[in-house]
């Protein structure tokens, strides 16, 4: 049975993807913020697919110590039950914030959760992904187009704007996927970004202020989370690793011209510094 790890899997796109992939016979290891919501999500999946193999691991991925903790738990579980290999890691957890708020490390929260958490979790799970010749899938957004990374103020301390922070975090997701491909394609690991389109999720509900208000109106026009879930399912199911980087509705799509290897390398170096890790020095199994 192939093993897939999904973050942000208690609601929205993450839960829909977990449901779909569990029904298709994948073993699902899911990460969610609250223990209570994890239990609810697991029950919902098992109610639909009684034979599903699904385990939830509660963790607050906003905090780096929680990421390393849950990565340790996942690694232990995978080593014991899944042949020490992972077939796909879906970095989907995300948030929106009306106000500048920081994590325990003092990092801006949208940058920290939407992008940096996926970077660190991927690093921590890379030995399992390498052994499984696995795929890393980031949840992107079309909103990444028309923006550059604010290299001199990546946390947007001087002039925080919620939408800019969100767009930049999604551009970083694609740059990370590009950088990961540059480094690990030869080792059999492939990275992708899924553009889910406008989806009816709860991402803006806890954002407060203007984002909360705008999202309430905007999400009415969003698709059901099951729609983008099909693209995650498609990327996980392909026997041969698809050649593209950015996918929408199971088809390759265009992305920003900012996605270059030069920018990806620059972001890799910055992210390694912010996470205190170095890719390439992980203990490959």
């Amino acid at each position: 049975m192939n093993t897939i790890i999904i973050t942000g899997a208690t609601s929205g796109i993450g839960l829909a993807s977990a449901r779909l992939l569990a029904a298709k016979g994948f073993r699902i290891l899911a990460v969610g913020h609250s223990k209570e919501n994890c239990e609810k999500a697991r029950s919902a999946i098992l109610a639909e697919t009684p034979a599903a193999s699904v385990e939830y691991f509660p963790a607050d991925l906003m905090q780096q110590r929680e990421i390393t903790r849950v990565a340790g738990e996942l690694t232990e579980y995978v080593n014991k039950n899944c042949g020490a290999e992972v077939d796909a890691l879906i970095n989907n957890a995300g948030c929106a914030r009306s106000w500048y708020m920081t994590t325990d490390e003092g990092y801006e929260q949208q940058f920290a959760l939407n992008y940096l958490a996926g970077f660190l979790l991927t690093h921590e799970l890379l030995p399992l992904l390498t052994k499984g010749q696995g795929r890393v899938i980031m949840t992107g957004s079309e909103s990444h187009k028309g923006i550059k990374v604010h290299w001199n103020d990546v946390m947007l301390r001087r002039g925080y704007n919620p939408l800019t922070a969100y767009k930049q975090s999604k551009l970083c997701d694609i740059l990370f996927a590009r950088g990961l491909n540059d480094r690990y394609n030869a080792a059999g690991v492939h990275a992708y970004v899924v553009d889910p389109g406008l989806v009816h999720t709860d991402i803006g509900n806890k954002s407060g202020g203007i984002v909360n208000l705008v999202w309430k109106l905007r999400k009415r026009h969003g698709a059901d989370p099951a729609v983008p879930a099909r693209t995650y399912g498609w990327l996980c199911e392909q026997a041969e690793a698809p050649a593209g980087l950015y996918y929408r509705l199971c088809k390759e799509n265009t992305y920003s011209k900012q996605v270059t290897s030069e920018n990806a390398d620059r972001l890799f170096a910055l992210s390694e510094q912010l996470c205190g890790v170095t890719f390439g020095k992980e203990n490959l199994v």
Partner: protein
Amino acid sequence: MNVLITGAAGGLGRALANECGRRGYNLFLTDVNAEGLLCIQRGLERQFGVTVTAKACDLTSAESVDKMLSVIDTNHIRFDMLLNIAGVDFEGGFMGREREKVVRIITLNDAAALRITHAVLERRRPGGHFTAVFVSSLASMFPMPLKATYAASKRFLLDFALSLRQELKDQDANVLALCPGGMVTTPEAMRGIAAQGFWGDVTTNPMEVVARKTLDRALSGKATYIPGGLNCTLSLLGKLIPRKWIAAVVYRRWNYAQNKWLTVKERNACCNAK
């Protein structure tokens, strides 16, 4: 520049630590939350490459403060700036709160601020300029029913800061009292501001801007800083309108907001219990 920040592991303290780190200042951070302190220390070192020393301390305990001071003295650290950020509030009417919780507001917001200020002033860098910041509040401008102890504790800090500033004026030092409206320091604070509706939104200040301007104003010798034009106007009105009228208006507003907020919290607690 060596800066000591209290309450550095969360909210405004963390934002100010970030701003100081961005400016390249060396930091001595303290907070009662030891784990959070280690996280922000690590984050600042990784972001800015500045020297950060962190020591967990309960500022309401003289013994705990003495232990921290011994670390400072052992390492011969002398300070150019003190940012007094640590503070606490518990929402609700005076008689609706536990006695010791009410007392703790004064113990931390006022008594602990005096203790650490006295200690750090004794350890200021010889011959250098010194800057101290106290976090008062927009609440210090008005009588605040349902936040009575908190508002009074912040009024104490405002008056104390102005007086201390005068005492130290001839000793190459400045003292600034920061009087912000609401700030989104935690998810709980975000929900509290949302419960106040329009007035919550318009009196809320962006934390990163407050952090930056607080340092700018303190270093340029200002005495007080009230962030936001509307908050400045409200503080002026507080000086013109009879205080008992203000108390009546504030009571109405807070009673409405707190009932709304507590209803949501109770509803959530009820759902969680299920």
